[in-house]
């Protein structure tokens, strides 16, 4: 039996969070704790980007909460002077769900890694996405277990030689974007730790989205998986490795044409209903796939996500794959409570007395 859920009007992700009194600085968002990641870790770049980006949100600092699980990236909340919880392995999305549902006036962020989110916490991740709880999940994907000193992760390529797989790992990796799309994600994006501009742009869009925003951040681990993303970071190769996704624009990459700005490779519909790479010059302009992040049907976004290399990363689509509006769990849950409250009269103690005395009662004496 379905019922009219009386859906609230869709709003931006931070609309119900109180605004700051005035301009804020990155320094205000920086805690007094010494940052303890390894030298050269990609996490530093993301931390700097987030600390610089948060003031621009214009939200009261005390209304921002960062929640993390376990792993290198999960130390993140300690370094931000907001409210924060460094929780237990894999469970951050569930804790953040409680926070976001209990409090409309908070901007809730989850910082997690490929092991935390996709291995031990896979269940919570997919259910957060399905419920569309208003929060932003930053998944730092370094394709390795760092904090436990170098075992393969659920995003490591097959055959990975690690401490726990001396003759090569056997399990097929997850593609985090494909997974998030399959889990009904309403905002799914991918960006790179070292591309500050792109990273910040994606964070801004993620924060503005009302619902679960899922952002995969490729992040280099210089100790246990150095160079995993060299192809998409190296100036000589990145043009050919990154498939940039910009809403409303044809998806092309490779060597750029000086006049059109188009790459020499493009995405086109494949005969099988999916998406494939073609030579831009070999297809007519109307065959070029124009990126539509707002398409209610996630099929094309999923097809694009499949162009990510499962092995060593020589090619990957980067950008916002999907951004669609869908009612959030927390808004609906709060609406049910406020609707119920609006229908009753009397104080809490009065109504409790009525509740306890309801039904068949009898008096003695």
């Amino acid at each position, binding site marked *: 039996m379905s019922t009219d859920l009386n859906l609230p009007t869709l709003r931006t992700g931070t609309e119900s969070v109180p605004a700051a009194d005035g301009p804020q600085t990155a320094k205000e968002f920086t805690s007094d704790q010494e940052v303890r990641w390894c030298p050269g870790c990609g996490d530093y770049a993301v931390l700097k980007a987030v600390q610089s980006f948060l003031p621009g949100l214009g939200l009261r600092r005390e209304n921002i909460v960062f929640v993390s699980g376990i792993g290198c990236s999960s130390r993140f909340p300690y370094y931000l002077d907001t409210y924060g919880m460094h929780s237990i392995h894999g469970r951050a999305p569930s804790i953040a769900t409680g926070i976001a549902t*209990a409090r409309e006036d908070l901007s809730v962020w989850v910082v997690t890694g490929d092991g935390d989110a996709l291995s031990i916490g896979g269940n919570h991740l997919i259910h957060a996405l399905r419920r569309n709880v208003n929060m932003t999940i930053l998944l730092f994907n370094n394709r390795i277990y760092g904090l436990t000193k170098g075992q393969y992760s659920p995003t490591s390529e097959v055959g990975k030689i690690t401490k726990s797989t001396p003759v090569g790992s056997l399990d097929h990796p997850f593609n985090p974007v494909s997974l998030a799309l399959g889990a009904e994600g309403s905002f799914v994006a991918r960006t790179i730790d070292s591309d500050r501009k792109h990273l910040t742009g994606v964070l801004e869009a993620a924060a503005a989205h009302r619902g679960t925003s899922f952002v995969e951040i490729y992040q280099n681990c210089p100790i246990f998986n150095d160079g995993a993303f060299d192809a998409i970071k190296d100036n000589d190769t990145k043009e050919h490795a990154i498939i940039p996704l910009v809403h409303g624009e044809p998806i092309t990459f490779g060597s750029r044409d000086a006049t059109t700005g188009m790459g020499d490779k493009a995405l086109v519909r494949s005969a099988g209903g999916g998406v494939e790479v073609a030579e831009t010059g070999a297809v007519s302009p109307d065959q070029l796939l124009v990126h539509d992040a707002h398409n209610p049907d996630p099929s094309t976004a999923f097809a694009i996500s499949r162009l990510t290399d499962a092995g060593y990363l020589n090619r990957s689509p980067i950008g916002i794959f999907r951004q669609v509006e869908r009612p959030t769990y927390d808004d609906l849950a709060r609406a049910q409570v406020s609707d119920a409250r609006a229908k009753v009269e009397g104080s809490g103690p009065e109504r409790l007395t009525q509740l306890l005395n309801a039904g068949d*009662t009898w008096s003695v004496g």
Partner: protein
Amino acid sequence: MSQTKQVKQLDRVIIRFAGDSGDGMQLTGDRFTQESAVFGNDLVTLPNFPAEIRAPQGTLPGVSSFQVHFADHDILTAGDRPDVLVAMNPAALKANVGDLPKGAAIIVDSHDFTKRNLDKAGYDVNPLDLLGDANDPLGDFQVHPVDLTGMTVEAVKEFGLSRKDAARAKNMFALGLLSWMYGRPTESTTTFLENKFKKAPDIRDANITAFKAGWNYGETTETFVVRYEVKPATLPTGTYRNITGNLALSYGLIAAGVRSGLPVFLGSYPITPASDILHELSKHKAFGVTTLQAEDEIAGIGAAIGASFAGSLGVTTTSGPGIALKSEAIGLAVMTELPLLVIDVQRGGPSTGLPTKTEQADLLQAMYGRNGEAPVPIVAPQSPGDCFAAAVEAARIAITYRTPVMLLSDGYLANGSEPWLIPDIDDLPAIDPDFATALNHVSKKAAAAQEDGSAAEPDEFWPYLRDEETLARPWAIPGTPGLEHRIGGLEKGDGHGNIAYDPANHDFMVRIRQAKVQAIAKSLPPLEVDDPSGEAKVLVIGWGSTYGPIGAACRRVRRAGYQVAQTHLRHLNPFPDDLGDILKRYDRVLVPEMNLGQLSKMLRAEYLVDAIGYNHVRGLPLKAAELAEAIGQLVGEAEGVDVDLGEHGLNPPADHEEAPLS
């Protein structure tokens, strides 16, 4: 043909309704209970049903039963052995006849004693065919075969239901018959049926008609010549309602929210026998209650912890297997020192165990089932109605001391019911969340800046600075300006709460977390010991739902002329401060439990007392008569006398619970 029926006075009766899982026995028992409650009897109930929703029809595993004990005085248990068995089919008869005392009455639906059903129940011969024979297997009992199904179908034929639907009203026919037999008021059942089947007038009318037909059958038949009367009980003055443990517990959680002014947030995953708390709380959003049916047990507690961090009263409900899954998260709540209620409605274990049966074997899990030194206060209700007060008490501790609290209910308390004296809201303890709103610490820098040596104003927030009396840390919720802080599972530095690995700090923090839980004992009232003569040498101590059977057993022993003392623990961690002295006052200490000796182990460890276990793990409440014999034996040893409880022990005819000595 109406005839004059004899009316016989009784002081107490135990009836067990038994049938197939689909026969509606729980509903039938529940209605009879409600009628008895409205009539004013004291009562205790024991529902007993299989884990399967519809076990194969007509088989022994599919038998579902509901036992109700009602009396004209205060009673403590659902009774060891039923005076009356209502058996809707051969399997119900076979599964339950062994529990009956000699002379018990059995009413069977003769219609269901078909070859097929007899085969399924494992009867080679129809026992009803042997009634009165020399080899009558039911010769010890008064058996009344009644064609309940046939008469029901006949009574409701005007409503044009299918034969199957018509026959389904047979439980109401049986209820009507029993209601007549014990002079129960019928209005509440009629009203109940009108509401329940509001949308299906045919079914509603058929059930009401069957109910009335059962009553009229009792009135007119020659099969039953005696009616019984059990007068209302004299109970403390006030307004009462009948209540199950799960309902009382749900109301207690709502009351805790009202008393503390906090929104209640329940994160839960469905599990027998705890799910009804989730169902109930989901109906009470108007009290500001949010319920989240999580993707798993861990997410349930995770969301509750998140909600607590955000300033709600976080609650998670489950049973033993769920506690196992939540253990790591409970440890996080210990470390982050956030208020949290973890409710374990215990069931038979280990593993999946006996999902629908009761047990008390999660005490050590609640006490020790986490990595590291992770002390958690433990509270246990002693009766269905007491689940209300226990929930409020658990919330008081959780909020006052900023700690997860385990509440150990069990399957018997959850589904069993009793009359409950409805409390006055104003009499419940006040609970003050006392959120932190101000900076609480003077930094070295600020202190040094005071050149005149005067005290500086606090310029920092230290999330682990403790209240001197309770040792609780401040609860600063997001949205509070200036108190931004980070907590987590890593060890905290004393006071400032930053990550700290140094050995002395860890040793200190482990001890302070333990000391905080221990400090709760200072807020507890003295333990009540029931020792009427003050001369008992044997103390019986229990916890949780064994309160009823232990109390009933002690009454038996006293009736037989012996002395015994009883006390019952609401708080399992910390123990009340006076418990050690009380234990030392007695020569012998007996600890009856539905486990292999978990409280007795804790008492031995804590007080070096020779606590003697009395342990049954049958998935059912302890039997008072058996326990009385065990107590009697111990009294004999302690006092150097031969103890014979006579009719107050296992010997017939007293299979009844004893009234208290006045």
